[in-house]
Structure formats: structure tokens, C-alpha cells
């Protein structure tokens, strides 16, 4: 029952589960990048409007809701492999995602 309510409000993203996992809560209507930056996670980014591709990441499991057509920035192979733009992705379910972070919450540098 509790999970039912949580599902409508927020989803969980597990970042880099194979190396140094970080757990991130993403509110409904917020993008993956915005949630990460608000939590102090050093997610690489530049334009935040879906045009530069800097925030590209690999979805390992789960589903996202794209806000734009990624094919203007990502190659067909990237899209087929599961890459998305974090700045234009809301979460439809809990996900596992790979991205090369600049810094993590709690890092000194």
C-alpha cells in the first residue's frame, strides 16, 4: 500500500551500481539531472535543454519518460544501446543507471 503511494510521487535511481553506488530519489515531474544536481551529485552537464549531450547516461534497467526526441543528439546506436539524456528524462519506474560522475555527494573535491 505504501509502495503504491510512493510510486506516484517519486522513483529511485541507483547510479553506478557496479562501482560506487549512489541512491537518488527523483520526484515526479523532475528530470534525472535536476534531481541529481539538487542532491549535490556531480552529474556532467552543460546546456540542460537537451541540445549538447553532455548529460548522456546508460539505463541498465527500468523505464524513463523522455521529454524530447533523443535522436537529434544521440546516434541510433546509442539509443538502441539504452543511452538517454538525463536532462530530458523523467522516471517511469525505479532505474539503474551508469554515468561517469564528476563528483559525488560528500566528496571533498
Amino acid at each position, binding site marked *: 500500500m505504501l509502495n503504491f503511494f510512493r510510486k506516484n510521487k517519486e522513483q529511485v535511481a541507483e547510479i553506478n551500481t557496479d562501482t560506487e553506488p549512489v541512491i537518488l530519489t527523483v520526484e515526479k515531474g523532475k528530470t534525472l539531472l535536476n534531481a541529481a544536481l539538487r542532491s549535490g551529485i556531480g552529474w556532467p552537464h552543460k546546456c540542460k535543454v537537451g541540445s549538447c549531450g553532455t548529460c548522456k547516461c546508460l539505463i541498465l534497467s527500468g523505464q524513463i519518460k523522455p521529454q524530447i526526441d533523443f535522436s537529434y543528439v544521440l546516434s541510433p546506436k546509442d539509443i538502441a544501446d539504452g543511452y538517454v539524456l538525463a*536532462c530530458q528524462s523523467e522516471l517511469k519506474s525505479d532505474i539503474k543507471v551508469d554515468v561517469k560522475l564528476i563528483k559525488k555527494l560528500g566528496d571533498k573535491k
Partner: protein
Amino acid sequence: MKLFVNARYLIVPISSLVTIYGIFAGGIYTWIGVFLFGTYTIIDTLTKNIHLRAEKDQNGDSFGIKEFQYVVMYFMLPVFILLQIVLAWRLFQFTSGVIIEPSVLSGINFQSGITLTNLVGATLSTALWAGLGIIYGHELSHNKKEGFFVSRLIMALSGASHFTYAHVYNHHLDLGHEDDPATAPRGRNVYTHTWLSHAGQSKFSYDLEQEKLANQGKSIFSFDNKWIVGYLYSLPSVFLFIWSGGALGLLALISVWSVSNFLLEALNFMGHYGLIRSPEKPVEHRHSWDNDNVFTSWFFIEIGRQGDHHVRGETYFWELDDVGAPNYGIGYFSLFVLTLIPSLFRRFVRTLLDDWDKNHATEQEVAIANKFKELGIRS
């Protein structure tokens, strides 16, 4: 406070409706859109020294109500369509030789028939307020859901549907660099910029579609080609004006599109004139000019807070704030008048650009500015 913060952005919607009513009422009232534009220029100039920060509650959240602002922005699409319809109706009356006489429709008085002079007034009023529709086309271009589509339709009413893609994928990425046609380099005037920026953005949008479709193995002659589809969205306006006024109707539509696109490109011109960014550097506050006096902010739904907008492109207009970006110190209306006289504008902007070179630019950006100076272009 919450009501005030949201209601103050209704200047354009209310003025657009007044303009529509004026054209419907006929006679001298067809000029009301021009009159309002002139009046607002005076108000903007008189309030040039009043600058406000974005208001926030105790939790640091904006007072803006997203649902309300989006309803207003979506509402502007039928308003701008109605603006074209009422002008087309006047064109039909003129070309049909309808006698000029007082009439009543559903209890509303209006003047049936129209003189050529007042038809010019109606066309200019329509052109100016259709041009101001770009502020909604711009804001909605940053909403990637249904708002993006509404943005395309609003821009299509001015024959500029390509703007929505070019603005996001070109202007926001290449700002301040020669790859961005919407950034005006030093020495260019607003008239030349209008043509170069419009054509450059359209070409970018075409190239973007061509590359996307090539990657997908599709022909460029496809309904998946957003550049083509965007121009198809403009066809109803073309048919409406030709049907209602023949050659004169087409001339009126060309006039409306010319003025509205001139206003669009004038905003681009003013937003980044002469500012330079090294291609390897990210877009920062210093790469935009702010125009944030009180009237400009409310009228143009904060589009003048360009410094903040270009760094936080995903931010709603009512949350944008003063971030210490370079500032013209006057509003868009006043500055627009200056840009119409290129020599005057360049004299005005010279000290501002000198200050930017000295206090904001990086070494690489100063080096590029110096190349302009070697060519005799100081501003």
C-alpha cells in the same frame, strides 16, 4: 502577493484582446495595437530605473503558479489565430467593397467596411502583436512536452516554426559563437541581422532534420521532417489571407510576417549583441545582456533575464532572477527604438562593450574582440 506575481504577466494577453477588439470595432480603433505599442514604449522608458528581483516565499519557492501560467500561454494560441482571422475579415470587407456604416453584432457596435488607411492600421496592429507572440513561442520551446508543439504552432503563425528547434539545439548550444546565427556580432545592424539570423536558423533546422533522417535511413521528403512540417503549419494562414484578400491579402500577410519576424530577431539582436564566447567555454551569465527593468520584465514575461535563462534553460520564466549579467540599464522597448538607428545604437553600446571586454571577458574572448577592433569595429 501570489495573485499579483501571476497577474502582472497578463499585459500582453489583455493588450492582444484589446487589439483584436479594436480591429473588429473598425474605424480609428484599428490603430489601437499601434497606439498601445507606442504607449508601452513610453512607459518602459519612464520606468527604466526600476528593477525588481524575483519574489519568493519563506521557503525560497517562487510565487508563480505553473498551471495558471501554462493555461495563459496555451490560451495565446487561439488569441493569435483570432487576431489573424479578424484582420482577414477586414481584408475581405475592403476587397469586397463593403459600405462603411455603423453596424451591430450580438449587441456589440462596430463599423462595417474599412478605409485603406484604417486597413493599414489593422495590418500594423496585427503585425506588432503577432510579433509579440514570440515571447510565448520562446517560453514554450523549452517545454518538451505538449508545450513544444504549441510553441511550433504559435511560431508558425509568423511563418517561423523552424525557430523552436533552432532556438533549443542551436542558439542555446552555440550562443556567443559564430556558429549561432541568432548572436549578432559587433558591427552588424538589426536590419541585416534579421535576414541573416532568420535564414541561418532555418538552415540549421533543415540540416538538423537532414542529419536525423539520414541516421534513421529515411528520406528528407517525409512527414518526419520537422522543418517541412513546420512550414506546412503556416499554410492555413496563407490560404486564409489569399482567400479573404487575394493579392492584397497576401501582401498583408507578408507585412505581418515581416514585422513579426523583425521583432523576433530584434530580441535576439538585443539579447547578445557583440558578446563573445570561446567555443570551448560553457555558456555563462556574461554571455547575455539582461533587460530587466520592471515594465520589460512583466511585459516580456521575464525574457529579458537572459543571463539566468541561458545558464538555467530549464527554469520557468517566473523563477528567473537577476544574476549579475551585463545589463543595458534600459528596457526592451527603449532599446528597440535605439536599434532602429544603427549609429545611435552602436554609440550607446560602445561603453558597455568596452566594460564587458575589461571586466567580464576571458583572455581568449578579448583576443577575439581585438580582431574586431583591428577591423575598425569597436561596437
